[in-house]
Structure formats: structure tokens, C-alpha cells
């Protein structure tokens, strides 16, 4: 149980980077971008093939990021210069990427378990720090018998995801970032303040897919393989993370919202892991579980809010009635 939750958090933190990308398009740009299903795999494929060809894992991961950026820019171009509807632009790009990803991989699945990945490199350094024995010692002392093999991945991913979050927060507060946010908010207004909305949309969708592909590259290195179908349903996982996170942690400021997205990604993984342990649920039910989760996060907060409102009103009515009664008594 503990181990499977540990695994859920571990991959949740990696997927959080993808979710941050989805947040950029869906929430900041108000651009429902479906490129994600394709660009995630593009990242995985580029990282896998690069590593197999001897490119250092860190460079391979950055190449994945660049590939995703380019893919996103093309989606943005389709929409802004080609005047194609945003949903359709994403679908077209996603479809095109399927073939491109297959070209990059050359076959549907490429495994590279024996190659040196970023995580293996980190692990070999990490082992020298002694953090593993410290953490596992702590776990054993509270009575856990099964302890994780390594804390390296969770540790380094926490750092990387946090850096990505802080960079995103910073970017969205810069002059360019403010213009990007306004583009998603009120295009007419930001054009009247001399911002080129076309370029900003292209930039935003590009950055979003850069993050998605970067996450794809890391997931491939985490699992030791890249598969042309590994991106199917990725957009809905990203959306689920964004919506669950926002429902639980709120969106008061940008920094809060990006933190919520990361939290949402981790919670999503945990819930799915838990759900799959239930006897009558199977792996194939995952999409249904995801859909139910998203619906719940969309509907529940509203229901809770209106219940609270109702309660507040009925209390107020009661107070006034009581006061009237009291006054009635003194009057008489």
C-alpha cells in the first residue's frame, strides 16, 4: 500500500509538469489545446531516441522540450495565421504528430532499459548522500516493513517541478507574461495596448507544449521505454489535474494556482492508484474514473457553495424572525 502510494506521488510529480503546460493553455490563454496527446509522445520519443544515440540524458530531455515547443508553435500558427478554430488546430496537430512520432521512434515501442537515463545518473549521485538510508530508517522506525528502493527520483523531481513552477510564476508576472495573460482575458483590450496577440498565442501554446514534451521525455526515462500510444488521453489527465487542484487548493493568485495544479496532478495519481486497488475496478476503467473525478471536481464545489449560501440565508432569516418576536414581546 505505502509503496504503491509512493510510486503514485513519484510519477504524479513528473506529470505535474505536463499539467502546468495544460494550465498555461486552458486557463491562462483560454485556448483548449489538444496538441498535448501528441506532443507528450514527441517528447518521449525524442528523449528515447537521443539517449539511444548516445546523447547525454540532460541534453536529451532539453531536446524533448524544444521539440514540444516547436509542435506547440505550429498549433498556434495554425490558429492565428491560418484562422483555424483552436480545438481543430490542436486535433490536426495531434493527428499529424502521431505519424511524426512513429517516424521518430521507427517502431511503435522503443525500450531502453539498459541505457543511462537522467534518473539513473541522479540515483548514482544520490546514493552517496545517504538520504535513502536515513528516510528508510525513519520509515522502519514507524513500523513500515516495505521501504522504497530509492528517494532519488522523488527528491530530484520535487526540485525540478518546483523550479518549473517558480519559472512559470515569474514569467507570468513579467511584462510579456502580463500581456500573455491579458490575451487570454481580453484580446480587444490588449491589442489596444500594442500587444501582438497572434505572437503571444503562438508563444503561449509553444511554451505549454514545451512543458508537456519535457514531462513526456522524463516519463519515458522513468519507465525505460517510449510508446507511440503513451499520450492517449493525456489532455484529460492534464485537465483533471488542473481542475482537481483548483477545486481543492484554490486559485487566488498565480503562485497559488500553479501550486494547486501540481497538487492536483499528485492527488489524481493517488486517487487512480487507490481506485485500481478496488477489486471490481480494472485498468480499463481508468478513463471512466478520470471522467468521474473531473465531473466531481467541477460539480461538487458549486454544490457545496450553494449549500453554504442556503444555510447562511436561512440563518439570517431565523435571526430576523427571532428579533421580530422579541420586539413584538417588548411592544406588547
Amino acid at each position: 500500500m505505502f509503496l504503491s502510494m509512493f510510486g503514485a506521488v513519484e510519477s504524479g510529480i513528473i506529470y505535474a509538469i505536463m499539467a502546468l503546460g495544460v494550465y498555461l493553455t486552458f486557463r491562462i490563454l483560454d485556448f483548449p489545446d489538444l496538441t498535448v496527446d501528441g506532443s507528450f509522445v514527441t517528447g518521449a520519443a525524442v528523449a528515447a531516441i537521443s539517449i539511444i544515440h548516445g546523447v547525454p540524458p540532460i541534453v536529451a530531455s532539453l531536446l524533448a522540450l524544444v521539440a514540444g515547443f516547436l509542435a506547440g508553435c505550429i498549433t498556434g500558427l495554425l490558429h492565428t495565421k491560418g484562422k483555424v478554430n483552436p480545438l481543430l488546430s490542436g486535433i490536426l496537430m495531434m493527428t499529424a504528430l502521431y505519424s511524426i512520432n512513429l517516424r521518430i521512434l521507427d517502431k511503435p515501442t522503443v525500450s531502453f532499459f539498459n541505457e543511462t537515463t537522467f534518473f539513473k545518473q541522479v540515483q548514482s549521485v544520490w546514493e552517496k548522500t545517504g538520504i535513502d538510508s536515513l528516510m528508510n530508517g525513519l520509515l522502519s522506525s514507524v513500523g513500515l516493513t516495505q521501504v522504497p528502493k530509492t528517494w532519488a527520483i522523488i527528491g530530484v523531481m520535487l526540485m525540478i517541478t518546483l523550479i518549473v513552477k517558480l519559472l512559470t510564476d515569474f514569467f507570468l508576472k513579467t511584462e510579456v507574461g502580463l500581456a500573455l495573460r491579458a490575451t487570454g482575458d481580453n484580446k480587444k483590450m490588449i491589442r489596444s495596448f500594442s500587444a501582438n496577440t497572434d505572437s503571444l498565442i503562438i508563444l503561449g501554446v509553444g511554451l505549454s507544449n514545451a512543458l508537456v514534451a519535457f514531462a513526456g521525455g522524463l516519463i519515458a526515462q522513468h519507465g525505460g521505454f517510449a510508446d507511440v500510444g503513451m499520450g492517449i488521453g493525456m489532455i484529460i489527465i492534464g485537465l483533471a489535474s488542473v481542475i482537481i487542484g483548483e477545486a481543492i487548493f484554490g486559485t487566488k493568485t498565480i503562485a497559488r494556482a500553479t501550486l494547486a495544479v501540481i497538487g492536483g496532478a499528485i492527488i489524481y495519481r493517488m486517487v487512480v492508484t487507490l481506485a485500481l486497488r478496488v477489486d471490481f475496478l480494472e485498468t480499463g476503467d481508468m478513463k471512466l474514473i478520470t471522467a468521474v473525478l473531473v465531473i466531481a471536481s467541477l460539480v461538487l464545489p458549486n454544490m457545496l457553495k450553494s449549500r453554504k449560501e442556503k444555510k447562511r440565508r436561512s440563518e439570517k432569516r431565523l435571526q430576523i424572525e427571532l428579533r421580530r418576536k422579541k420586539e413584538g414581546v417588548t411592544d406588547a
Partner: protein
Amino acid sequence: MLKLQHLSVTFNENTPNEKKALKDINLSLKKGDFVTIIGSNGAGKSTLMNMVSGSLFPDVGDVFINGKQVVHLPEYKRARMIGRVFQDPMAGTAPTMTIEENLAIALSRCKKRRLTFGVTKKRRELFKAYLSKLNIGLENRLMTKVGFLSGGERQALSLLMATFTEPDILLLDEHTAALDPSRAELITQLTKELIETYELTTLMVTHNMQQAIDLGNRLIMMDKGEIILDISGEEKSKLTIEDLLAEFKRLRIEEFESDRALLV
């Protein structure tokens, strides 16, 4: 400062909905001119403003700002020289962003946007100083999201955002029309003050004749895509609503007569 030459636009040409919105418009503004524009619905006032801002392009004609031909420049490039306030109070600000973030966006209007913080301590002080001149307490609500402001407050903010970077041309298109009378009065007052402070060259469309007479140094009346009246200086300061109505009737009946002459 602003020069429009032979501007013509026809919407939906060669269809049953064909509409000649502007017919060979010529207009020239000197620096510091404050021109009010009146005219019935559909006269082409907004279309004229859109020609200047670049939201729409003319079929033929030229637009010069500061002697520079800008008729081919897209809206966002011209915006470096132009400040604008729209009729809809929701249109001029970004609702999910804070007051200070909106002001930071406005501050970047005439320069290249960079990867440095939009809101800094120094800028915040500057924004506070500007906002306190509006006298509606916005200086204490820098971190409030603009979506929470009332229509009047949003329009006051839009007005400040359009003016404080001192654009070459200020365009106001019925920017008080969507507000209740007292708010409209406040915004009109602010408009006057801000234009005077920054000596802005202004085109202001209004449906309120009294306002058109009271404000500015020049008044233009439009009808059916043409400028039918252009009064400035001494003559304008003596103008009354009755004069305007009489003039409108006289000009349009003349046209009516000549139309009939053509038909007979």
C-alpha cells in the same frame, strides 16, 4: 498631428446589405485639438474611429499620424501612438488581473515588452499617485481584480490607462454611454481633466449634444458616412443645441431637395 484623406469604406459591397459607412472623409487635427463628434446612429462615427485605430481598414484613403502614413499598420502597431476607451466598460481592462497589473500593461503600451517584472515597487508608487488623482479610492485597491469593480470604476481605470502614457491621439467612442447619469458625469469630468493635464489630441464620439458643445475646441457632425458640419473656435463656444438641430435640419432638407431634383 492626425490627418485623414479621402477615407471611404463600404461594408458588404455588391450584396443587398451594402452599406457605404464612410464617403470620402477628409479631416485634419492639430496638436492639442479636442474634437467632439456627434451624429445619428449608423452615421459612421465608430467606423471613423476604427479607421484611425486600425481595427478596420479603409477601401481607399490615407491615415497620417505625426506625418507618418499608418494606414497599412495593424492595430497593435498603431496602438503605440493611440490611447483608446471603448463604450463597454468591460472592454478596456482585463477582468481576471489586478488593478496594478492592468496599469502595468498600459505602461508598456509605447515600448517593447521585456522579461522583467511588470509590477515593481517603484511602479506601484507611480500607479498609486495616478490612481489617487481619480479620487475614487482605487489607490487603496491595487491588488483587487478588475472584474470586481463597478462599471464606473472600470471606465475610470480604462480612461487613466489610455491617457497616462500620453498617446499622440486619444480616441473615445461613447465611453460614458453605458453608465448611469451620475457615473457618466464623473467620467466626463475626469476626461476633461486628463485631456487638459496631458494636452492630448482627442477624438471623442458622444450622443450627448450638450456634452459635445461643452467639451473640446471643435465639433463635428456626421451623417450617412459624411462630415456635414465642422465648427471650431469662437463659433463653437457660442453654439447651442437649438443651433445644432436647426443646422442639421437645414443641411438634410437641402440634401433631400437635391435628391428629389435628381429624381424628377
